[in-house]
């Protein structure tokens, strides 16, 4: 009993008038009723494009679906439907959670209005009824304080909160097929767990099928009935989850499974696909030791950092919201501070405030003997080369009218790194290769890339400057394990070579475990625990930390 049957799907993008590139090359898979199918694979392998094709959301002006392709939903050929028939299905029978919630929400409507709209359209609810239901939905996806957030605009929510709004919107009508494109990248494990349970409940109640796109193989093991593995626009392997995860037939799948970082081991370098695809397993790696010692030279000392926002209420009212309260930590040269914590706990805000992208409300951040937060703007300019941030939402942080080449060259031009553009271009090419992007990327625009690819562009942009401190805000969350490993290795190499320090914000505790010397746990704007990584994982002190660690999905 298949609900969705994709046969021989081919999608090509136009490069210019005559040339096209094929992003999806004859993909076939099916989603049975009342089942969860996980679509995993390399970043940029065509997962999002395939799912957009199912939704009929590819821009007809630039993307062309091969006429021989077929997408049948419940026996109906979707590709043959006209706009009206398709719209009747979309949102109601098929719903999708987009990969980048931050730019997928309409910035000028409140989240309540956007969710309510679906309810009113497809379920014919009245305004008040829809609002009640919206509140319930927001509650269900675990949004704190839904009664307030329902009237918030997307820009007033944290990344994870926005993602949950997206989820609420998609499940609002309890669709028969839910396409979830990396729905939990921005969520911490506790919330992720909550969401997965929610989806599972819906699945039971409505016999819903889920097409789940993710990089998190641990998660796949927990929830998926079937797994489809993609690479380079092709399906490499498909089959029941247990079989694929335990006895992978395809070399790529095997390699993928090997590359997973684990909570127990900390190899010197993470293995990458290439290590396995050659056939021979890579030599065992020495263990890397992490942790801080009191003698480490402190590079950045943050004391009592606070940030509060003034939020508008109605036309005249306002309210102060404390996003960060009295955060203090010390970052040593060549060390990594992992920051974990619930979504909306203020992690991003800490990063942005340190870079003075938000004006701090209080506290100090002493870098090299100078307080970053209080120095004159002119003086701070020089520090921008030394402290950098990779934004949580890479797409929005890339100028849509700049080519990738321009994006990467610009920081070097500003800070006069490299003698001339030719030399800088050389560095750009080298960096692109290191983050796993093709050299041809330089002349393309951000919107032509997959989510993971954009994330790597954002990383590469910061690395052009080789800053002393790099704030990585969920910077590898959209990457499949292999590419993630490649990027983490790169960061590690730079740290080893040049002694960079990282503030590594992530909800992926295994990644944090691998990368961080010290881990800071945040909850509701405050630091609840700050300890050496090994110590924290071994012996969490706070209940919140313990809950966090317990929620980590473990495969097999």
């Amino acid at each position, binding site marked *: 009993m298949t609900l969705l049957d994709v046969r021989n799907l081919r999608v090509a993008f136009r490069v210019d008038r005559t040339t096209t590139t094929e992003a999806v090359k004859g993909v076939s898979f099916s989603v049975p009723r009342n089942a969860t199918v996980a679509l995993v694979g390399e970043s940029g392998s065509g997962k999002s494009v395939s799912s957009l094709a199912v939704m009929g959301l590819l821009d007809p002006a630039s993307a062309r679906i091969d006429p021989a392709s077929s997408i049948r939903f419940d026996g109906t050929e979707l590709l043959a439907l006209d706009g009206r028939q398709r719209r009747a299905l979309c949102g109601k029978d098929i719903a999708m959670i*987009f990969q980048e919630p931050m*730019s997928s929400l309409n*910035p000028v409507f409140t989240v309540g209005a956007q969710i309510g709209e*679906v309810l009113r359209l497809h379920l014919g609810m009245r305004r008040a009824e829809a609002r009640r239901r919206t509140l319930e939905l927001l509650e269900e996806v675990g949004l704190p304080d839904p009664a307030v957030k329902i009237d918030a605009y997307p820009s007033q929510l944290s990344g994870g909160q926005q993602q949950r709004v997206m989820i609420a919107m998609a499940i609002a009508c309890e669709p028969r097929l839910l396409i979830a494109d990396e729905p939990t990248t921005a969520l911490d494990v506790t919330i992720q767990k909550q969401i997965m349970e929610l989806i599972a409940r819906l699945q039971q109640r409505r016999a819903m099928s889920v097409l789940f796109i993710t990089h998190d193989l641990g998660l796949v093991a927990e929830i998926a009935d079937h797994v489809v593995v993609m690479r380079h626009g092709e399906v490499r392997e498909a089959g029941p989850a247990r079989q694929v995860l335990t006895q992978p037939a395809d070399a790529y799948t095997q390699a993928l499974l090997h590359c997973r970082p684990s909570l127990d081991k900390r190899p010197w370098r993470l293995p990458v696909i290439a290590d396995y695809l050659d056939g021979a397993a890579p030599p065992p790696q020495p263990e890397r030791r992490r942790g801080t010692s009191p003698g480490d030279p402190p590079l950045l000392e943050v004391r009592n950092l606070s940030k509060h926002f003034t939020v508008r209420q109605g036309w005249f009212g306002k309210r102060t919201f404390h996003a960060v309260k009295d955060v203090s930590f010390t970052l040593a040269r060549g060390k990594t501070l992992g920051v974990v914590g619930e979504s909306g706990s203020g992690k991003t805000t800490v990063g942005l405030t340190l870079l003075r992208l938000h004006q701090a409300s209080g506290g100090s951040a002493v870098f090299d003997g100078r307080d970053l937060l209080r120095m004159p703007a002119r003086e701070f300019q020089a520090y921008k080369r030394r402290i950098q941030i990779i934004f949580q939402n890479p797409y929005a942080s890339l100028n849509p009218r700049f080519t990738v080449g321009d994006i990467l060259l610009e920081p070097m031009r500003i800070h006069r790194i490299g003698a001339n553009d030719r030399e800088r271009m050389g560095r750009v090419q080298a960096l692109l290769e290191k983050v796993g992007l093709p050299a041809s990327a330089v002349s393309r625009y951000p919107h032509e890339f997959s989510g993971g690819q954009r994330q790597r562009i954002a990383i590469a942009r910061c690395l052009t400057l080789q800053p002393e401190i790099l704030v990585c805000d969920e910077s590898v969350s959209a990457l499949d394990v292999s590419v993630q490993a490649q990027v983490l290795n790169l960061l590690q190499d730079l740290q080893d070579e040049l002694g960079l320090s990282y503030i590594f914000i992530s909800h992926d505790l295994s990644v944090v475990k691998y990368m961080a010397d010290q881990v800071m746990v945040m909850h509701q704007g405050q630091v609840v625990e700050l300890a050496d990584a090994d110590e924290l994982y071994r012996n969490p002190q706070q209940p919140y930390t313990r809950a966090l660690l317990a929620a980590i999905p473990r495969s097999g």
Partner: protein
Amino acid sequence: MLAYIVRRLWQMLPTLLGVVLLVFVLFNWVGGDPAYILAGKMANAESIANIRRQLGVDQPYYVQLGIFIRQIVTFDFGLSWATSEPVSHIIATRLGPSLTVLIPLTVLETLIGIALALVIAFVRGSLTDRAVMIACTVGMSVSILVYIIVFQYGLAYQLGLFPVQGWGERFGENLLRYAALPILIGLAVSVAPTLRLFRSFVLDEVGQDYVRTARAKGLSERRVMWVHVLRNAAIPILTYVMANLPALLIGAFLLERFFGIPGIGREVILAVERSDFPVIKAITVYVAAATMVFNLLTDLLYQAVDPRVKLA
């Protein structure tokens, strides 16, 4: 918010003062000397001096400026130098006809502009898009003078669809009978530029991801365009529309001249020609005040349509 409005209102004072000074300087510098007109064709030095004394333009500048400011504060600009008609009466009676033409014109222009922009942005690049744009461009490339002359001759005189010119006393008659052709002509020249601008604004938005989301929700194209896209494109559209509003107070003198509409546009031109300073002063001050109020309103509206905008 209230504080913001108060601050903005407070800031209007220096603006108004700037306008007052500028108008005053400009007029005294280039505005011509009304005495030479008022003195008639047998003017002699003595009568000119007398007229200057009667008008008060022989007073020191600071006294005249003081009078000007007192006039603003009391909303009384005295009598027109040229016709001895009270300035307040001039403005009160001439504004109505101008607005009778211009308000419907602006409303229609904006609505048509938005509707067409949304429609053709949706079919961007298609034949329809091209055809509408070319038609609009050709239409807009013709000067309003030509439209007036040809339409008045063809539609009004030859075909008798409209009165050739004239103005009545009842609002309904004026709007439906006399203002119809001027509005039509106004539309012929103004829809095209408006549409092109709006199309550009809309196109800027349709590429955004939230449009994809809206479609994924199964919304009809109409709703996607009219609700989701339009709200986002509203900032520039609002700006454009609001920025044009103060111009309504100055009227459209070509239309007024040709169609015999006793509007304020003719009055402005006439006032400058006759160096009728009281009228110029009053109109300038009103328009300045209106401009500022509309600006403030625009900024408040920004905030209403786009939550990301912060007014400090």
